[in-house]
């Protein structure tokens, strides 16, 4: 029986905080590199390509792997010293399949609740509750092997909820789901993060999904924090104008360069910085002057994808320059 001060009861305290978190494997591999960030309550998206350090971060947060240097805390508990308590209060949903096919969802979720430290009778109640919340109440006595992919994903979520966590770590929860299943899963996560009041960290490589449900977004790349910001700041209108012409892009680029707009070719598009309303006129005049067939001219929104653009790539530099303003 663990007697502890309430975890995460301080509204200002971050749910997850890392400070100079570094983890090396051997002399050459650095999985996390001086990562300092804070995750508040609500739903936080964690984006990063494969090998960005997400797995290492999850292991450290669960107290399963000591950091090489730096520190991390979850629900106000130090990961190095209080791993057991953190794991009791955190629900984890792995990316891969993790369900035995030959037991019923009820039995499985009950057992997993017990493994989170919930006593037998309460574990049964919580299993029924969790399965109801994920929408599997009717089917809960069926063997998991008979479930569809979407239902299995729900069982994975239910087992994470079985221990009544204060924090949920969801690793690619929409993996393998069809569009309807994705929407349903995202709605569910949104409800858990909002209505249930459980903080959620959800990782995904599909940024479009994360955009829909997250309050906050954290991007890591090669073990470093790329960006941590609220969702709205990611998707605000940028100061980039994208111009697409049917032909003669080179001519237009030269013309725009001559007019001191320093265009950057990105795929079929030319990107220029918007310095004022005059920019639109200059571009219009340039296109008209060359007699080119203009297909599209639009002010770009920041897209979360831009976070991952190689800084060496021209558009990345342009974006970087704009972000720097």
């Amino acid at each position, binding site marked *: 029986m663990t007697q502890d001060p309430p*975890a995460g009861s301080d509204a200002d305290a971050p749910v997850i905080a890392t400070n100079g978190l570094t983890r090396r494997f051997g002399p050459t591999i650095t999985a996390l590199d001086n990562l300092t960030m804070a995750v508040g309550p609500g739903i936080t998206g964690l984006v990063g390509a494969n090998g960005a350090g997400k797995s290492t971060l999850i292991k450290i947060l669960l107290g399963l792997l000591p950091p090489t240097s730096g520190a991390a805390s979850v629900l106000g508990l130090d990961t190095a010293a209080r791993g057991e308590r953190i794991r009791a209060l955190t629900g984890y949903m792995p990316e891969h399949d993790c369900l035995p096919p030959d037991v019923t969802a009820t039995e499985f979720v009950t057992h997993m609740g017990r493994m989170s430290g919930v006593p037998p009778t309460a574990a049964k109640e919580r299993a029924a509750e969790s399965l109801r919340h994920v929408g599997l109440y009717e089917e809960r006595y069926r063997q998991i092997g008979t479930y569809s992919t979407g239902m299995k994903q729900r069982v994975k979520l239910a087992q994470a909820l079985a221990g009544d966590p204060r924090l949920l770590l969801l690793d690619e929860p929409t993996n393998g789901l069809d569009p309807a299943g994705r929407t349903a899963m995202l709605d569910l996560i949104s409800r858990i993060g909002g*209505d249930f009041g459980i903080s959620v960290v959800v990782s995904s490589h599909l940024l479009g999904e994360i955009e829909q449900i997250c309050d906050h977004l954290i991007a890591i790349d090669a073990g470093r924090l790329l960006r941590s910001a609220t969702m709205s700041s990611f998707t605000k209108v940028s100061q980039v104008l994208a111009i697409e012409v049917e032909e003669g892009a080179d001519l237009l680029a030269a013309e725009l360069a001559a007019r001191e707009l320093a265009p950057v070719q990105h795929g079929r598009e030319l990107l220029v910085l918007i310095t004022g309303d005059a920019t639109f006129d200059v571009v219009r005049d340039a296109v008209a002057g060359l007699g080119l067939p203009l297909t599209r001219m639009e002010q770009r929104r920041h897209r979360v994808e831009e976070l991952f653009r190689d800084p060496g790539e021209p558009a990345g530099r342009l974006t970087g320059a704009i972000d720097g303003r």
Partner: protein
Amino acid sequence: MAADNTAGAGLVAPGAGVIHDIGYQTYDGPRFGRGQIALALCWHSLRSAFGFGRGAKAKIVPVITFVIMCAPAVINAVVMALSKSHARVIDYDTYVGNLRVLVLLAFMAAQAPELVSRDLRSRVLPLYFARPIRREDYPLAKYAAFTLACLAMIDIPVLLLYVGTILQVHSGAAVWAQTRAAILGLLVGLMWAAVLAAVGLALACVSGRRAFSTGSVAIFLFLTWTLTNVLTKISEAGQRGGGGQITAGDQATSAAAHLFGLISPFTVLDGVRQWLGGTSQGIVADPGHYGFAYGLMLLVLLGGSLAVLVRRYAGASVA
């Protein structure tokens, strides 16, 4: 518990607002720590070793093997009752050794994978390791559970044998003698269970594929058992050819024959029993001066198997 109640109330804070009443119930009760969770895992695994909490199919092998294990004890009781005899037909401490090695082997081959391979195959381990128990708790809880399962398979028949015998003896001295012998028999059973459970799980955890897992246990135990028997027979025959009749336990049993007994865990266990003073004739010749080798082999089997088992899970991935 009071602290945990407030922890439940603290749920409001991470949401940074009000929890709308849509029916989500937080759990405010007590939470067990690592020790009790490991116990719960042990109990759950013990149940699954006999197919409880699974479909009817999962109970077939455990039930059949258990019945076969118990049959001699029941037959003994019936025979003693009918013949009004006071003499047991079977000894307590060699019950398993003499009669049911292969049945126990079948039980282990079928049920050890039930405990370890299923979790490996369905990749459920990350869910355990993301919970309060530590890496080593999982294999040790499984080991404790399988030891108890094997113990039930071995010692319940011994207890039945004891009860069946006791009903037919009437003098106090005889009851005491039976009781003493039965207790020693139960302890031998514990030794068997503790060693075989470790060996069985270590062999079963090599693979998540149930068939491979079962095969690994069955082939290893059966091959070593057969090898020991065949080699012993050959060496006995060789001695017989060169001289008089050799019986098991005879002082003249060759050094080679003793060493052959070290191949199979079953004969190692029986050798250790005799080395420690067990007198009834078992499945291997009395090791005599080679007793220490049997003792050493037993420790190597137990320690090695547990090391394999724990190490198997030390590197298991979570994320």
